[in-house]
């Protein structure tokens, strides 16, 4: 399933369009950045409530195509700018992480 299909199916708000046609291989949900650094795999979507620039830095380093901010998270201005610079698809869900994970799991399990 592509990033674009996930945006449509989950009704996500897209703050930075990038990697829309990229195939998503899974997802990783964590607010601990070293956990993501150590354990997330490239091609996965990252689900988090962290809204600062280090998230996009890590997404870029780990080849994570898209980040979903849960509970209507508002990214810091420099995070949004960095997502644009690094071509990270930045998405927002109104749902909490549990619901986002459940819905996404049903789609790409």
């Amino acid at each position, binding site marked *: 399933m592509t990033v674009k299909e996930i945006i449509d199916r989950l009704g996500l708000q897209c703050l930075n369009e990038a990697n829309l046609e990229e195939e998503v291989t899974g997802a990783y949900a964590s607010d601990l950045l070293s956990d993501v*650094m*150590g354990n997330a795999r*490239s091609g996965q979507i990252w689900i988090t409530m962290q809204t600062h620039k280090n998230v996009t830095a890590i997404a870029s380093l780990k080849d994570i195509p898209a980040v979903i901010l849960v509970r209507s998270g508002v990214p810091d201005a420099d995070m949004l700018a960095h997502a644009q610079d690094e071509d990270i698809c930045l998405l927002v869900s109104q749902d909490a992480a549990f619901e986002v994970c459940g819905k996404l799991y049903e789609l790409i399990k």
Partner: protein
Amino acid sequence: MHYTFTIERGNFTDAGQASSSVKRTLKQLGVDPANIKRTVVALFEAEINAIAHAYGGTIDVDIDEGKIVMVVADQGPGIPNLDLAMQEGWSTASAKVREMGYGAGMGLPNIKKNTDDLKIDTEVGVGTTVTMTVYLV
């Protein structure tokens, strides 16, 4: 090839710039993606450690055909008990750093897992030098 970067105390905004730059170079050199991933995980973690704990420092990266050597040297408090620091889950990070999602005690274990050689020289009240090597062959 040799690259040098500067680390500023508490400057999380620019965290990852060195790792990002090294990643670009390694990609251009056609280094195997698995080795690029290992390198950037280790370098980013070491960079974050220095930003979070030390008063400033430098990153030196040497790349040749056979290996990547990364030296992150800081002026800082040093690590009083290195065995404890290497344990997963042990951290002395501040509340502010933890709020950002760091300080879970996974940084040094991540570095160890992703490098072939890890050497840590530390002196309390002086600083810490972390030397990490990733072999490419």
